[in-house]
């Protein structure tokens, strides 16, 4: 490392305050990136001050820091260029409106409708699945809605198909089995017969 010049307390405070501010601005940044960025900026300051002739004055330090740019600008620039990476899950990205948002919401509404309508729900259920897939392709900030729509769509389709299958079986039972089996007739008679009066 360089043998930095010994700064007056006033000049050293300026440098420390600048680096503290920058460190605060980079609070959400990956620790390695952050340490690396802060270390390299300090090295820059040391280098720039080493270039100067004569004793370093607070004004020299202020000049060097001004050329670096304001801590918030430097932090913003470093993040924007990807020189440091944020630890936080890019909050701007996840809250910003995305093209598939409307589609995801529509899919959710269709999913709810589909679940509420036992057999007719097959149609909105399929539509909810299609739209949920489209929302994924377009990208959406409402990932939760999309997934719920997907689940509701699947549930509606499965329930709808089961009910249809139930109807079909019952229908087949009545038409085929009814004539051949006495049991069915007995059951039917029991079900439809008025309660016996003793």
């Amino acid at each position, binding site marked *: 490392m360089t043998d930095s010049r010994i700064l007056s307390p006033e000049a050293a405070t300026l440098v420390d305050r600048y680096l503290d501010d920058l460190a605060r601005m980079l609070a959400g940044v990956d620790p390695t990136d952050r340490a690396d960025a802060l270390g390299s*900026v300090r090295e*820059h300051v040391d280098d720039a001050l080493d270039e100067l002739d004569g004793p370093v004055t607070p004004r020299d330090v202020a000049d060097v820091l001004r050329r670096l740019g304001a*801590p918030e600008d430097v932090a913003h620039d470093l993040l924007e260029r990807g020189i440091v990476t944020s630890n936080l899950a890019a909050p701007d990205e996840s809250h910003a409106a995305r093209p598939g948002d409307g589609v995801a919401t529509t899919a959710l509404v269709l999913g709810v409708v589909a679940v509420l309508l036992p057999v007719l729900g097959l149609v909105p259920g399929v539509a909810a699945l299609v739209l949920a897939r489209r929302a994924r392709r377009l990208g959406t900030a409402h990932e939760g809605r999309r997934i719920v729509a997907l689940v509701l769509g699947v549930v509606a389709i499965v329930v709808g198909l089961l009910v249809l299958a139930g109807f079909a079986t019952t229908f087949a039972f009545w038409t085929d089995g009814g004539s051949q089996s006495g049991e069915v007739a007995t059951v039917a008679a029991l079900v439809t017969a008025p309660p016996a009066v003793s």
Partner: protein
Amino acid sequence: MVPGDDAILSHLRRGALEYCVLALLRDGEAYGLDIGARLGGDGVLLGGEGTLYPLLSRLRRQGLVETSWRESTAGPPRRYYSLTVEGSQALDRFTSVWRRYRDAVDSALKGSL
């Protein structure tokens, strides 16, 4: 809203600055402050010098540049930056992509006049 010069430059710089740094090192090693002075003179390529050293540090971690300490005539030793073989290849690749990009932008801009 029409974006200001600074906003446009900041967008354009985003992908190009690191290659401009590599290009400055093509003809030989350079000292950090010197790179800053050559890039930052007019404020077009480099907004503030605060970005440069972290960028150099990242290029070093990526293996695109390497550093060595040299004695200077006055003052303490200085860290010099030079291109690695990989850095040189990255620069060549960027140069050819950049030409295609620049030509496409130029012809689009001319077409709109």
